[in-house]
């Protein structure tokens, strides 16, 4: 007998006494917590991001390239990784050498890059979370992981949802997803929070309004 048959057989025998009712699970919980206006949702997102020590910036579509340039210059980043589908105008003002992520680039090559700029799939206001789904403006999972500085652009309010249930509804489970709430952190040493153990030590989130030619 294969182990598959053995395990499944054990499960079935273990459940011999159990009524197999198929009633759907009751879900008495909320779809979102509190009724907020669109603007309030964006505020809450900014607040919760900051609470997790992400650096939050705001810009409109026109200011965005200058802001990105400034943030990169402040870090002194010479090399910046960008996913293949990043809107070119975002980087229009930045002078550092732009590195396009390619499938062949090794983790060692990525490790030499200082900053990465991406978009996101959506952001969750109640938890201060940004979610990446590997879309063209976000790239492979590894590019937002290995460099030490991540700049993530969130289009507000379109990309902002209130809550975790709303987020899952909008995400495609077949894509690899990365949920990010603040920079990498550990509390393993006497519960003192230390940031940046492995992922980027600095997460900067830009909330951008008036995109898509508005």
């Amino acid at each position: 007998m294969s182990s598959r048959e053995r395990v499944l057989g054990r499960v079935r025998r273990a459940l011999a006494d159990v009524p197999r009712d198929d009633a759907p699970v009751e879900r008495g919980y909320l779809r979102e917590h509190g009724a907020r206006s669109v603007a309030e949702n964006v505020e809450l997102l900014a607040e919760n991001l900051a609470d997790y020590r992400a650096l939050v910036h705001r810009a409109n579509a026109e200011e965005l390239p200058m802001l990105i340039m400034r943030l990169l210059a402040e870090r002194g980043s010479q090399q910046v990784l960008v996913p293949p589908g990043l809107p070119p105008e975002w980087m229009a003002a930045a002078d550092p050498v732009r590195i396009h992520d390619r499938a062949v680039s090794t983790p060692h090559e990525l490790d030499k890059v200082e900053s990465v700029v991406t978009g996101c799939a959506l952001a969750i206001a109640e938890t201060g979370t940004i979610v990446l789904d590997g879309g063209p403006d976000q790239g492979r999972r590894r590019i937002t992981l290995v460099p030490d500085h991540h700049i993530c652009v969130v289009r507000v309010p379109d990309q902002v949802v209130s809550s975790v249930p709303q987020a899952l509804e909008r995400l495609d489970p077949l894509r690899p997803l990365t949920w990010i709430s603040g920079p990498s952190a550990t509390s393993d040493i006497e519960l003192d929070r230390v940031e940046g153990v492995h992922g980027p030590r600095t997460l900067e989130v830009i909330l951008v309004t008036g995109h898509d030619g508005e």
Partner: protein
Amino acid sequence: MSGTFVGMPAFPVAAKEAVGNPTLRGNLRHATHTIRAKRAKAVEEVSDWAELREAGKRIKDHTLRHLDRYLVQLEESVRAAGGTVHWAADADEANRIVTRLVQETGESEVVKVKSMATQEIGLNEALEAAGIRAYETDLAELIVQLGKDRPSHILVPAIHRNRGEIRDIFRAEMSEWGRPAPDGLTDTPAELAEAARLHLREKFLRAKVGVSGANFMVAETGTLVVVESEGNGRMCLTLPETLISVVGIEKTVPTWRDLEVFLQTLPRSSTAERMNPYTSTWTGTTDGDGPRVFHLVLLDNGRTDTLADEVGRQALRCIRCSACLNVCPVYERAGGHAYGSVYPGPIGAILSPQLRGTGSEIDASLPYASSLCGACYEVCPVAIDIPEVLVHLRERVVQGGPVVREGNRVVLKPAKGHAAERAAMRAAGWAFGRPGALRAGQRVASRSRRWHPRTLPGPGRAWSGTRELPAVPAEPFRDWWQRTQDGKGDAK
């Protein structure tokens, strides 16, 4: 029976030793109290906590009730997404499968994401025996591994170590395993974390094989979920070419949507955060992003035996948040090591004796590692009635009876040397058969310290006469142990 800490004495003996260690007690006390207070705040923020808890309980119960169907569905979904599924009836089989899979890649080292399942089966040791080195990459696990130590907490396995000890371990051991600790390393947490970052980065960048567990597996889509803080998980899940995940069959949830419950309750219950810093989900393999080969090893190892017990099976709802450890007065004093398994605290006290059976001394003693105060039940985000299962298991140890071991029905003999407990068990059984008396005697204790009854009413008196009912350590664990166990642990 792998997973037992070899040569481990029974809980009372191990606990007594731990209780006498002031550093350990101090570290634990500080840690559990800190997390406990933070958690209460994080939970208060969510107005529908009770409903989320109830839904989490029901989703898990529903899954367990149809586990055969969901496992088959999960297998199909993972295959359709490009993964390979393996089934392991026990620890040995799981270890053999993983060892073979690693050998087939031609590699002799793997990077690991913190995973209870792989600890439970002793995977690192099995790989070592086959000449494969497994590197733990979670900071706390690294501290445990370098210190040739054992984890003592589900979430913060090195909680028993203070910064000075960690610095000494890094200085002495890092060079054995790779990049040595920086010269002049101090004991500030930031410097220690930086030393770990440098040490581990070297390993991440060259790793070809990653090994993980998972917090959830979605049957409908074949998606696996790993919840973490540091980013070491993301490293192991995305940089290697081959990913092998070893996951207990009870981690299944039916639908993608079900995650909306657990991704709200798990972070708040475990680290007291609105959301943990990183969550990764993956469904099979994705072209050009992450591992090209994905293996899922579905692990039984006593889970189906647990499922066969109508009272005990609720332990399989556990999402390993560790909230029950942090409120447990016994854990706080005894420390995680005393439980003799990778699952310490209240959940360990009910899970280990079910996964492994109560054949060994330590496993037979675990159901007694509790004051039955009910605090663990109160905090549990999937409402596992740990006290109920504890009493049930005590009864089983004392009276024997039919159980399922490795899929077969066997009849357990009553344990010797527990005669005194037998009367106590009848009393407990009486109390549990009468919800009113039980509530009066126990649950209330965790809420209203001032009005703690000292004894249970009716026949419960005999039982509570030798045990402190309250959650609260009105009586030090040491005294409790001395008095109830006659100081038998003194031999050590």
